[in-house]
């Protein structure tokens, strides 16, 4: 077990390192960042000044090493657009995104798990078909368009909710729905298939045979095992949601790191973009690791591999 944990942690560390290196190279492969930072109409001398100032004239590996050794100490350098350090910016914006991500995940689970369970208990019923139809619709709905539709309906036609900003909890309702619905179909399908499988198993027949009511059989015996795969999927979904926040936060003007990322991309603020890419990857790798370890803890068969 200890060896298994060590192996997994080592692998996660390697993945994080590789991803940070890859994204570092990618963001510098498109040409000279100094030209983009200087903006249009900058003189050759200005560009040269920026190049030396930010160290873009040094070999990429040296730049990467410098950046990485800063990053592990929490120093991501100075933002070239905002007048603060990247670390301060992120510390200020990350809580908003995490709040949104957690709210969206809770929304998705509250919608997907009951729907998936009911669909499995009554297969091919109207509820099952409706749930399946909803998941097909949900997967095809472009999230940015869905966000605009919600704004048209709930802020324009029927002014109930604020269209942008993040000062009150009402500001989070629409972003939560848009971000959360996207994870719902996958979670629901997994809950449904998990539940179907469990309901066929022997211990459920035993529970029924000893005279337990349907609520106890489903709620107590079946549910615990049925939602295990959905739980491990939701850790992955949470990572995807944080990534998707780039689009949603820009539309709703929510000041999280998603919107920060978009702003810094438009302003060629390389240091900030780089740091956000690293943080989102780290969160994803961390969640995956947690999910793996939790699974191994709950299911001893996994540890062998």
């Amino acid at each position: 077990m200890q060896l298994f944990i060590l192996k997994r942690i080592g692998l996660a560390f390697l993945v994080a390192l590789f991803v940070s290196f890859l994204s570092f190279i990618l963001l510098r492969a498109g040409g000279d960042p100094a030209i983009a930072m200087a903006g249009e109409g900058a003189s050759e001398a200005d560009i040269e000044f920026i190049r030396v100032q930010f160290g873009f004239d040094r070999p990429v590996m040296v730049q990467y090493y410098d950046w990485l050794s800063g990053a592990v100490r929490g120093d991501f350098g100075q933002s070239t657009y905002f007048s603060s350090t990247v670390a301060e910016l992120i510390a200020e914006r990350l809580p908003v995104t995490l709040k949104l991500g957690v709210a969206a995940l809770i929304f998705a689970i509250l919608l997907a798990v009951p729907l998936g369970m009911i669909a499995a208990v009554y297969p091919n019923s109207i509820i099952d078909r409706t749930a399946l139809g909803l998941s097909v619709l949900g997967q095809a709905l472009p999230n940015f368009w869905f966000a605009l539709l919600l704004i048209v309906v709930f802020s324009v036609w029927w002014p109930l909710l604020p269209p942008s900003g993040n000062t009150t909890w009402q500001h989070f309702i629409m972003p939560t729905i848009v971000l959360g619905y996207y994870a719902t179909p996958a979670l629901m399908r997994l809950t449904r298939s998990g539940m179907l499988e469990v309901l066929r198993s022997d211990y459920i027949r035993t529970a029924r045979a000893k005279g337990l009511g349907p609520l106890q059989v489903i709620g107590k015996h079946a549910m615990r095992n049925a939602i295990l795969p959905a739980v491990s999927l939701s850790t992955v979904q949470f990572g995807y949601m944080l990534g998707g926040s780039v689009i949603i936060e820009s539309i709703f003007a929510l000041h999280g790191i998603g919107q920060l990322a978009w702003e810094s991309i438009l302003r060629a603020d390389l240091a900030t973009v780089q740091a956000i890419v690293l943080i989102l990857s780290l969160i994803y790798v961390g969640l995956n690791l947690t999910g793996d370890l939790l699974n191994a803890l709950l299911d001893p068969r996994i540890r062998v591999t």
Partner: protein
Amino acid sequence: MQPATGLENDLPEPALLSPGQVLWQRARHHSGFLLGGTGLALIIILAIAAPLIAPYGPSEQDLLQRLKPPMWADGGSAIHILGTDQLGRDYFSRLLYGARLSLIIGLSAMLISGIIGSTLGIVAGYFGGRIDLAITFLITSRLSMPVVLIALAVAAVFGSSLETVILILGFLLWDGFAVVARSSTIQIRDTEYLLAARALGMPLWRLILTELLPNIKDALIVVATLEMAHAILLESALSFLGLGVQPPLPSWGLMIAEGKDYLLFEPWLIMIPGTALFMLVMSINLLGDGLRDISAPEGRS
């Protein structure tokens, strides 16, 4: 003459059906597959015939005819069936040419990611061992990268255009192909017909192309449809944020972005391209789900 017991006549005759016929039998009764297939076929026909159907050019401006509503709304007319945008361009014509763009981007990105992902997956699954470890590591790393963010940042760095969008999506969305190709290859790696091919001394490239690939193609086709839908959605999001296809090209995502400024009084400017996008993606998804049910009904839940 058969004795008339009345029983034999009701029995199907499965032995007479070829595998292709069996698939067709299943396809004919799968409503999702039929719906998705019809929808996609319709959109493809409209896209190909765009120059014949479209009453105007996609970038043809008429500044005296700006922001005309669709024909069914107040003030609309049959001159512009779906109205015009903020530059007086015919919305119906732009929608038709936009379908071409979405399909071209979806197909090309899917082909690139399909080649990358399938190659990696087959190599990993077939050889196993350290090669498999290395490629699995690549897949895990790719899954750990925030796709939307990386696509946006790289598009900004390389300068956004139709070609860069296709390349970026192609090089980002190969993970699904790799995962499926790898697991399907592992499943059939030790089958007797592959052993026989190896024993015959068949060169590796031929073994992969003629023995292995045909046996995992069903699974890959399903991934292909889903990744194509994924690419189309991502392109529209990139274009919506201003870092995808550039104006005046009629990308549906771009049309929604341009219509966003008129959200209050002309909501149809975002309704029309959004609905088109939604229908295209749903058709492809239904087709993909249908293909999976038809080619591997035992895996259906």
